[in-house]
C-alpha cells in the first residue's frame, strides 16, 4: 500500500467511529439498552489494546508464554471482580461517582489531596501507555507501507488529532449524559468486535492457509530450536504478573469507565463472566503460532511486535494486511478514547477545577466543568504526544504496558480497603500511595526519563531469584499496604469519613431509599442559593432532568427564600459530584452553606434498622419455607391418597358390577316365578329355581373372592403355614374334580414324585390348585397333564409344578392381563361362564405370599397352554 491509501484507510476508519457513535446516540440507543449486557461485556474488551494485538506476539516471539499471565490473571480474578464490582457499581451509582479518583476520595472523607495524588499517579502511569498506542498506530502504518525503505508517514499526528476531536465530542459528557454515553458504548463495542475478528480470523487465515495449521508451526519451530518459547520462562515473575494484571482489570481507568460508569444494571456484570474470557481467548488464540511462524519465515531484523502484519504482507494477501491493520487500529483507538476521557474527568475534578477556586471555595475565575474537562483532554493528548515523540520510541510495547500496570496496581490497597476495611483513613491511604508511587517512580519513571534501562537499581534486589521487575512490584505493593494499614491504625477518621466508610462497607445491606435520600449535611441553604450554585456548574437541561424532577417526585415546593430541606441539599451535592468529583463538590457546597457545615447522618441507625428488618424477613422466610415444605408434603400425600382412592373406586365399581349380574338373574327369575304362579310349566319353574341357586352360589364365591383379594392387597392375609405334601394335595383336588372332568370328556394325568414337601397354608394351596385345575378343565379339549419336578433359581431349591392342557390356549391379547383382577377373557363363550374374574389374581397373590411365582409358562403355538408355579423346597431329610 502507498502512504496515501494508508492515511485514507485510517481516516475512513476514524470517520466510521464518528458514525457509529452517532448511531449509538440516536437510532442504536434502544438496541444498546435492550442488549446492554452484551455491550457491557464487549466494552470490557477495551482491556485488549495494541499491547494485546501486536505486543503479545512480540513478547511470545522473544520470551515465550509469559505474556499469557496478562490474560489469565483477569480471567482468574473474574469471580472476585464480579463480587467487588457489584459493590463498586452500587456505591458509585448511589453517590454519583464517575471515576476511580472519585471513588477513592469519596470513601476517604472526600479528601482533595488524596484525589490529587491518585490523579497524578494515574496520569503518570497511563500517559506512557497512551503514547504507546500512538506509537503502535504509526509503526503499524509504516509496516504496511510497501516502500517502507524510501517513505515514512506521520500518521500519528492525523490519528491523534482525529481521536482528540472524537473524545472532545463523546468523552466529555460521559458522566451525566446517557445519550453521549450510549454513543461511546456503541463505539467501544464496535471496536471490540473489529479487533477480535481481525485477530482471530487474520490468525486463522495465515496459520491454516499458509502454514498448514498450528501443529505444523509448532513442529517446525521445535525443529528450528525454538522450544524455549513453548514454556513459561520465569515462573516467579509469572505469578506476580498475573496478580498485577488481575488488579489492572479492576483499576485501570478505562476498565473503571467501562465497568462502573457505563454500567446500566448490576445484572449485566454476570454476562461479563463468560464474555470476557471468551473475548480474551479469541484475541490470543493465534498469538503463539503467529509469533513462531513470524520467527520462522521472516528475517531476524523485523520487529517481532509486527509479525502479524509482516506475515500477512509477506504472504502477498491483498486485503488481509489492511484488515489486520484496522484490528490493531481499533485496539489502539478504543484504549485512547476511553482512557483519555477517564483521565480528563480526573484531571478536571482534582486539578483544574480546584485551581479555579480559592481556598474558601470562592471562584477565582469562572470555568464550568465541561470546559475544564475539555482543557484536560487537550492537555492529556498533548502530554501523550510529547511522551510519544520524545521518550517512548525505545521501549517495546509490552514493557511499557507492564510498567503502567504496576503503577496502577499501587491503587489496589486503597481501593480494596475502601470496600472491605472500615478502619482505613485518608492519611493512611495517602501515605501508602505516596510510598508505593515513589518507589515505582524511582524504579521506572526516573531511569526512563534519563534514558536508562528501568529497574536496575540495587535497592530492589531483595529476592535474588526474582527479576528486577518482580522485586519492584512486590516491594512497592508491600510497602504501600504496610504504610496504609499502619498509619490508618494510628490516625483517626473524621465524621464524614467514618460515615462514608460505613456506607462503603455496608452498601449491600443498606436499602436504596436510605442511601438515595438520607441527608448528609445539616447546614442551611435557601432554595435560591442552591439553584444558583447548581446552575453555575450544571448544563441547563440537566437541571430539568434532575433537580426539578426530584422536586416533583418528593412533592417539594421550592420557595426561593426558604431553607432547602436536607434531602434536597444532599441530592444537590451528588449532582455536583457527578460534574466535579466528591472533593471539589464538597468544597463548593461548603462555601454556600451557612452555619455548621458537615454533619453526617447516622448510618448506624439505618444499619440497625436494616438488620432488624432483615432478621424479621429471614424469620418470615424460614416460616414460609417450612409452610411451603409442608404444603408440598401434603400435596404429595393427597395425590397418593387420590391415586389409592381411584384404585379403590375402580375396584369397588368392578365389584358392584360383578355382583349385579347374579343379582339381576336371581331377581328376574324370582319375580317371574311369582308373577306367573301356576301358569308356569313345572319344568320351566324347576329350571328357573336351579338357575337361582346357581347364581346364589356364584354370588357367595364372588364375595369370598373379593374378601380374599382385599386381604392380600392390604397385606392382612394370614397364612397358617404347615408342612404339606404337594402330591397329596394334588390327589385330593383331582378326586373332587374327577366327575366334572369325566363330564367334559377330559383326561387328567400326573407325573412326578410321591412326596414333595413344601411349607404352606393348606386351604390356600388347595384354592390355587382348584382354580388352576377347574380352569384347565374348562379350556381343555381332551387332556390335562400335571407335572411336578425339582428345579432351582439362583441356587435355591424349588418345587416346580406345571399344569398343561391341550386347549386352544390364551388369546394373545389376554396374556398381559391374565393376572389382573376382574379380567375375563373375551373368548369364553364356548363354555358357560361363571367365573368371577378373580381366580387367577388370587392364586397369583397366594403363590407370591408363599415365596413362589405363578406364571403362564407356555402358550400355543410354543406348546400346550401351561401354567406353572414354584414353591421353595423343604428338605425332608433334615
Amino acid at each position, binding site marked *: 500500500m502507498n502512504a496515501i491509501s494508508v492515511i485514507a484507510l485510517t481516516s475512513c476508519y476514524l470517520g466510521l467511529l464518528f458514525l457509529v457513535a452517532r448511531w449509538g446516540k440516536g437510532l442504536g440507543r434502544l438496541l444498546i439498552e435492550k442488549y446492554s449486557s452484551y455491550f457491557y461485556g464487549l466494552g470490557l474488551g477495551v482491556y485488549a489494546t495494541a499491547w494485546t494485538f501486536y505486543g503479545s506476539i512480540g513478547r511470545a516471539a522473544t520470551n515465550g508464554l509469559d505474556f499469557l499471565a496478562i490474560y489469565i490473571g483477569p480471567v482468574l480474578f473474574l469471580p472476585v471482580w464480579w463480587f467487588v464490582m457489584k459493590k463498586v457499581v452500587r456505591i458509585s451509582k448511589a453517590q454519583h461517582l464517575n471515576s476511580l479518583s472519585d471513588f477513592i476520595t469519596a470513601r476517604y472523607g472526600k479528601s482533595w489531596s488524596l484525589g490529587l495524588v491518585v490523579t497524578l499517579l494515574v496520569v503518570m502511569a497511563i500517559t506512557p501507555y497512551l503514547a504507546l498506542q500512538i506509537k503502535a498506530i504509526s509503526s503499524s502504518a509504516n509496516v504496511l507501507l510497501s516502500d517502507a525503505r524510501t517513505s515514512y508517514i506521520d500518521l500519528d499526528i492525523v490519528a491523534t488529532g482525529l481521536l482528540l476531536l472524537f473524545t472532545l465530542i463523546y468523552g466529555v459528557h460521559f458522566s451525566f449524559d446517557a445519550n453521549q454515553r450510549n454513543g461511546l458504548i456503541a463505539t467501544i463495542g464496535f471496536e471490540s468486535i473489529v479487533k477480535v475478528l481481525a485477530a482471530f480470523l487474520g490468525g486463522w487465515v495465515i496459520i491454516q492457509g499458509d502454514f498448514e495449521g498450528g501443529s505444523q508451526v509448532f513442529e517446525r519451530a521445535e525443529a528450528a530450536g525454538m522450544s524455549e518459547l513453548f514454556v513459561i520462562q520465569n515462573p516467579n515473575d509469572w505469578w506476580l504478573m498475573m496478580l498485577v494484571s488481575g488488579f489492572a482489570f479492576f483499576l485501570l481507568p478505562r476498565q473503571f469507565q467501562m465497568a462502573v460508569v457505563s454500567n446500566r444494571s448490576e445484572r449485566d456484570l454476570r454476562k461479563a463472566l463468560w464474555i470476557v474470557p471468551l473475548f480474551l481467548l479469541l484475541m490470543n488464540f493465534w498469538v503463539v503460532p503467529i509469533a513462531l511462524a513470524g520467527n520462522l519465515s521472516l528475517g531476524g531484523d523485523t520487529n517481532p511486535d509486527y509479525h502479524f502484519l509482516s506475515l500477512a504482507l509477506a504472504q502477498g494477501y491483498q486485503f488481509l494486511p489492511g484488515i489486520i491493520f484496522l484490528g490493531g487500529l481499533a485496539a489502539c483507538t478504543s484504549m485512547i478514547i476511553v482512557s483519555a476521557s477517564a483521565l480528563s474527568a480526573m484531571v478536571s475534578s482534582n486539578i483544574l477545577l480546584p485551581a479555579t477556586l480559592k481556598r474558601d471555595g470562592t471562584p477565582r475565575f469562572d470555568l464550568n466543568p465541561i470546559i475544564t474537562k475539555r482543557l484536560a483532554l487537550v492537555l492529556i493528548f498533548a502530554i501523550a504526544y510529547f511522551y510519544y515523540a520524545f521518550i517512548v520510541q525505545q521501549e517495546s510495547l509490552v514493557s511499557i504496558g507492564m510498567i503502567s500496570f504496576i503503577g496502577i496496581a499501587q491503587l489496589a490497597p486503597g481501593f480494596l480497603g475502601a470496600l472491605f476495611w472500615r478502619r482505613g483513613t485518608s492519611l493512611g491511604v495517602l501515605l501508602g500511595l505516596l510510598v508505593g508511587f515513589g518507589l515505582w517512580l524511582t524504579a521506572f519513571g526516573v531511569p526512563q526519563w534519563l534514558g536508562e534501562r528501568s529497574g536496575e537499581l540495587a535497592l530492589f534486589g531483595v529476592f535474588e531469584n526474582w527479576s528486577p521487575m518482580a522485586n519492584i512490584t512486590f516491594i512497592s505493593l508491600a510497602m504501600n499496604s504496610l504504610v496504609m494499614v499502619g498509619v490508618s491504625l494510628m490516625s483517626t477518621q473524621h465524621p464524614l469519613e467514618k460515615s462514608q466508610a460505613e456506607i462503603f462497607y455496608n452498601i449491600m445491606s443498606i436499602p436504596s431509599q436510605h442511601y438515595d435520600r438520607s441527608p448528609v449535611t445539616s447546614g442551611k441553604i435557601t432554595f435560591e442559593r442552591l439553584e444558583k450554585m447548581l446552575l453555575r456548574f450544571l448544563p441547563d437541561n440537566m437541571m430539568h432532568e434532575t433537580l426539578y424532577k426530584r422536586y416533583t417526585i418528593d412533592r417539594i415546593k421550592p420557595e426561593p427564600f426558604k431553607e432547602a430541606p436536607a434531602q434536597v441539599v444532599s441530592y444537590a451535592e451528588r449532582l455536583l459530584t457527578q460534574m466535579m468529583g466528591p472533593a471539589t463538590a464538597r468544597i463548593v457546597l461548603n462555601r454556600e452553606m451557612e452555619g455548621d457545615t458537615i454533619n453526617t447522618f447516622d448510618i448506624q441507625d439505618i444499619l440497625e434498622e436494616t438488620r432488624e428488618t432483615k432478621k424479621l424477613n429471614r424469620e418470615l422466610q424460614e416460616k414460609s419455607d417450612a409452610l411451603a415444605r409442608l404444603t408440598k408434603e401434603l400435596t404429595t400425600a393427597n395425590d397418593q391418597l387420590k391415586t389409592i382412592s381411584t384404585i379403590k373406586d375402580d375396584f369397588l365399581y368392578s365389584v*358392584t358390577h360383578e355382583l349385579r*349380574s347374579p343379582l339381576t338373574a336371581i331377581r328376574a*327369575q324370582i319375580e317371574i316365578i311369582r308373577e306367573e304362579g301356576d301358569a308356569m310349566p313345572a319344568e*320351566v319353574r324347576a329350571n*328357573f329355581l336351579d338357575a337361582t341357586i346357581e347364581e346364589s352360589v356364584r354370588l357367595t364365591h364372588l364375595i369370598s373372592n373379593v374378601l380374599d383379594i382385599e386381604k392380600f392387597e392390604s397385606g392382612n392375609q394370614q397364612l397358617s403355614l404347615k408342612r404339606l405334601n404337594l402330591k397329596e394335595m394334588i390327589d385330593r383336588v383331582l378326586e373332587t374334580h374327577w366327575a366334572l372332568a369325566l363330564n367334559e370328556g377330559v383326561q387328567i394325568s400326573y407325573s412326578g414324585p410321591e412326596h414333595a414337601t413344601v411349607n404352606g397354608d393348606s386351604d390356600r394351596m388347595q384354592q390355587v390348585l382348584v382354580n388352576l385345575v377347574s380352569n384347565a378343565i374348562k379350556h381343555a379339549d381332551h387332556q390335562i397333564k400335571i407335572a411336578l419336578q425339582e428345579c432351582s433359581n439362583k441356587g435355591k431349591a424349588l418345587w416346580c409344578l406345571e399344569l398343561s392342557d391341550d386347549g386352544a390356549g390364551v388369546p394373545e391379547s389376554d396374556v398381559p392381563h391374565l393376572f389382573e383382577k376382574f379380567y375375563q377373557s373375551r373368548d369364553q*363363550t364356548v363354555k358357560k361362564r361363571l367365573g368371577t374374574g378373580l381366580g387367577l389374581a388370587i392364586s397369583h397373590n397366594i403363590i407370591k405370599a408363599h415365596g413362589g411365582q405363578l406364571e403362564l409358562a407356555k402358550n400355543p403355538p410354543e406348546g400346550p397352554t401351561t401354567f406353572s408355579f414354584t414353591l421353595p423346597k423343604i428338605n425332608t431329610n433334615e
Partner: protein
Amino acid sequence: MNSILIVDDEPNIVMSLEYLMRSNGLDVSIARNGTEAIEQLENKRFNLVLLDITMPDVDGYEICQLIKNTPDWAATHVVFLSAKSKQSDIEKGMALGATDYIVKPFSTKELSTRILNLITA
C-alpha cells in the same frame, strides 16, 4: 308380530328375559355375544334390541353405534340393559342414540312396561 333381539352373555339372565318377552307376546331372538348379535341383525329386522354392554367380544356401545349408523337398521330402538350404573356410562349410551337405558338388576314389570310402550307406540 313385533320382534325383539336380546343380547346378553349371562345365560341365566337371557333365560329370564326370553321367558318374559315371550309371555308379552313378542317374537324373541337371542344373541349371546356381540358377533352373534350382528349376525342376527343382518338376517332380520327387529323393532327393538335389548342390549347388554359388557360382553367378551364386541361391546354393546359398538353395536349400538353400528345399528344407528346403518341406514337400514337405524329405525330400530336400542335399549341398553346393563350393570354399568355410572352416570357417565348412561350418558354415553344415550349419546350413541339409544332410546332407553335400564340398569341391572331391574324390575321385570317395569322392564316389560317400558319395552311394550316403545314397541307399540
